[in-house]
């Protein structure tokens, strides 16, 4: 690649506004052919909007797109495909009960009869899988495949449509480290064949590991485009946020005290009679953070839901030595709160907040029958608002307006509302799921500090996260979950991402290097069982 080459993609002056919000402001970007180009930025920085414009989902208000030097109008995704652009979305767009082959061909069938297209696709699939390590069984049903495999199907779909440019939107969000490594090997292979790859992510590590060039977006603007070799994670973080950011969590050694939470042989069977928790036993002491690592969907959500009183279970759970009700009328979230359990749920938009409620109404959510918030039969709304304003100030929630509805706050500020509400109750045990999912870097730092501060105040914290970095930097002890079981416990100082990654894939014998096939099979199996 030389600087004199024609860019595979060139954007000139792209702008897009949604009402008063300028999602993209005068974006100019060149992606050279045969490179991996990273786009990094916080949530809401405009990365996805930009890619949606490139893929024809949105129409830009202004600006031009050049593909391989030719000015190209992309009014819809058909035009994008015609221009050789393929997109792998964060949320896969696959037909669950179709085979891999049928999904690949879907929408690109040639003629009214399926057979010739399928035969052609089968041959192509074989070639591609030999070439790029893109091994997928063409006759497997999508619903039987793990997420890593499903993602490969998405990539194959794009390649089948002869994409020269592949856009991947947060591709590693659902993958184990081993799967992510495999994906990167595939991407390297595609690059060698001359394909151009655009990788959208918020993970600095991935950018450093795989990209050639990286563009940084902040508040709808392209703030910098730099060669990856010539930059550092710290510099990129600063470019993303606009100020210096502490990437590591600064914390003192834990001082564990009495055991607060004791869980024994916890089991959950879901509506479809599938066992989601298969005998979980663990404990958390006061003044320590127990991190639960695992690929999403291996029972961590159910564990949090059971402890938070949202789901019934069998087994035994003790808080401060006292048994709690897991099946009866006292197994609800209200009773759990009364027992000193606070819960920052995994999905703040679906569970932690009422998106159409004002900030102040949300600040009482779950604690709305607290004495302080009530005066006789009526709720003391003025008191709730006063309390909310105090918390808004303490947790630096912006905008500082207790009348704003939750949906109009950014992801980070929504999460701060939940964190403020739960932490300020001074609980004995904090359950916290995905505390920084969809939260910008500046807020991540703050939220991590708050969780550590609670630990230092002698409280027990049970942390569930799919981000290994977060688990490694916050936890005092780490338990790995796979397929509804605890695979083992490790101390952060005595383990690394590789070992945890293998445990997350269900391989306990971590001294032996497992084959990629073993990992894939294990994950596919767990996906089938857990789904």
């Amino acid at each position, binding site marked *: 690649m030389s600087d004199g080459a024609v860019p595979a993609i060139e954007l000139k002056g792209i702008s897009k506004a949604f*009402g*008063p*919000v*300028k*999602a993209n402001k005068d974006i100019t970007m060149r992606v050279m052919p045969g490179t991996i180009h990273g786009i990094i930025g916080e*949530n*809401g*920085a*405009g990365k996805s909007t930009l890619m949606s414009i490139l893929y024809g989902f949105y129409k830009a208000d202004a600006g031009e797109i050049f593909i391989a030097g030719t000015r190209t109008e992309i009014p819809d995704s058909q035009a994008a495909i015609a221009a050789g652009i393929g997109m792998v979305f964060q949320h896969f767009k696959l037909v669950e009960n179709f085979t891999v082959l049928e999904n690949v061909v879907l929408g690109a069938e040639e003629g009214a009869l399926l057979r010739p297209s399928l035969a052609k696709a089968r041959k192509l699939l074989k070639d591609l899988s030999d070439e790029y390590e893109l091994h997928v069984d063409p006759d497997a049903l999508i619903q039987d495949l793990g997420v890593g495999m499903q993602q490969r199907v998405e990539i194959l779909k794009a390649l089948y449509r002869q994409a020269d440019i592949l856009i991947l939107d947060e591709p590693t969000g659902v993958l184990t480290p081993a799967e992510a490594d495999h994906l990167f090997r595939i991407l390297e292979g595609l690059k060698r064949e001359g394909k151009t790859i655009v990788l959208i992510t918020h993970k600095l590590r991935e950018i450093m590991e795989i990209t050639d060039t990286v563009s940084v977006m902040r*508040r*709808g603007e392209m703030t910098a485009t730099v060669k990856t070799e010539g930059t550092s994670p710290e510099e990129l973080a600063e470019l993303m946020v606009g100020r210096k950011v502490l990437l590591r969590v600064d914390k003192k050694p834990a001082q564990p005290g009495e055991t607060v939470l004791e869980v024994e042989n916890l089991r959950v069977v879901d509506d479809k009679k599938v066992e989601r928790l298969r005998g979980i036993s663990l404990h958390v002491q006061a003044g320590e953070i127990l991190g639960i690592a695992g690929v999403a969907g291996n029972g961590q959500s159910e564990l949090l839901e059971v402890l*938070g*009183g*949202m789901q019934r279970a069998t087994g035994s759970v003790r808080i401060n030595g006292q048994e709690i009700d897991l099946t009866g009328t006292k197994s*609800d*979230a*209200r*009773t*759990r*709160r009364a027992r000193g359990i606070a*819960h920052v*749920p995994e*999905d703040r938009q*679906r*569970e*932690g*907040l*009422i*998106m*159409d*409620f004002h900030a102040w*109404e949300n600040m*009482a*959510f*779950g604690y*709305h*029958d607290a004495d302080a918030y*009530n005066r006789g*039969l*009526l*709720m003391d*709304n003025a008191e709730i608002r006063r309390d909310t304003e105090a918390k808004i100030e303490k947790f630096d929630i*912006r*905008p500082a307006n207790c009348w704003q*509805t939750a949906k*109009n*706050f*950014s*992801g980070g*500020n929504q999460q701060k509302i939940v964190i403020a509400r739960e932490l300020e109750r001074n609980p004995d045990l904090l359950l916290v799921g995905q505390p920084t999912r969809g939260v910008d870097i500046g807020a991540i730092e703050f939220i991590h500090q708050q969780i550590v501060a609670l630990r230092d105040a002698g409280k027990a914290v049970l942390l569930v996260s799919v981000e290994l970095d977060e688990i490694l930097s916050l936890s005092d002890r780490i338990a790995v979950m796979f397929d509804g079981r605890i695979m083992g416990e490790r101390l952060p100082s005595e383990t690394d991402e590789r070992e945890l990654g293998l445990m997350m894939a269900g391989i306990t014998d971590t001294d032996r290097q497992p084959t990629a096939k073993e990992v894939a099979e294990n994950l596919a199996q767990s996906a089938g069982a857990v789904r």
Partner: protein
Amino acid sequence: MDKMPKWADIALVPLINLLLALIVSGLVVLSIGEDPVEAMQIMVRGAVGSTYGWGYTLFYATNFIFTGLAVAVAFHARLFNIGGEGQAQLGALGVGLVCLALPWPHWILALPFAILGGALFGAAWASIPAYLQARRGSHIVITTIMFNFIASALLVYLLVGPLKVPGSMAPETARFPEGTFLPTAREVFGWVGLTFARTPLNVSFVVGLIAAFGVWLLMWRTRLGYEIRAFGHSESAAVYAGINPFRITMITMLISGGLAGLMAVNAVMGEQQRLLQDNVLGAGFVGIAVALMGRSHPVGVLLAAVLFGALYQGGAELEFETSVPREMIVVIQALVILFTGALDGMVRGPLEKAFLRFRKQPKPGVPAE
């Protein structure tokens, strides 16, 4: 940031909807060879041009306040109670039984018991679909509408059987004792020396206003209302907060059915003064339109109820004074329901866009998303 200012959301959109409905109605009137302007004048004069008009308008409105509030309360929990018709019929039964049970000496004594009877019977009728929804997952839209038919059949059975006056040919109960007759607006105005035409408007209107205030208090000032609204917005979040979905579904539907049942205090006790077979006259269904147009807020419900009352009364005048047939009034009312309810998004969407376009630059500090 909200898409448009609140006043536009709650006032401008319904007004534009109403205007559109009236324009289309005008075209329909024109198409049958009548003068739409004259028809409009007759309707307005008939509805609000005299104490007689106001009396009937507000009498009808009282019915719609109760049924509208019933739908609105349920809607806050995202329960679409379209069984107001049947619940009101059962409410009528409750009111009728109370009124016939004793030789009531004075309406002041009879009214609280009639309110209780109407509310209890309406609530009881709503409790079965509520239970089926909460425990069995049977969709409340289906069950409530089917319960309308059952209620109607039940009433027919009672009125041709156990409750019929012996020897009478009509499917109706005996006339209620005089001690249950509610004071009409004419009497109440008379007490302070004012004149008001003879209309069925009675003190139930005041009960309706109190009920509207009560609903407001419940929804926005009590824990129960908070839980109902939270549950309506997100059941999963409600479970997270320790709100019991079964309990909320049941309580909400009991309140909703009770409000629908209260309609009988106005229609049966206040006007008909006996239990008739068809005592609801479609008010249960109009309540849905009233709640939709009133955006499920008690003040909105009050205003929408008065509007629909005026349409009923103005429509009756129109039929009386012109050759516009009765069916045409139904068409006009249907158009209003269509535009304010079903076609709400047609106006709302473009209006939101217009507001966004004319809005100034975003304030600094507002995150882009």
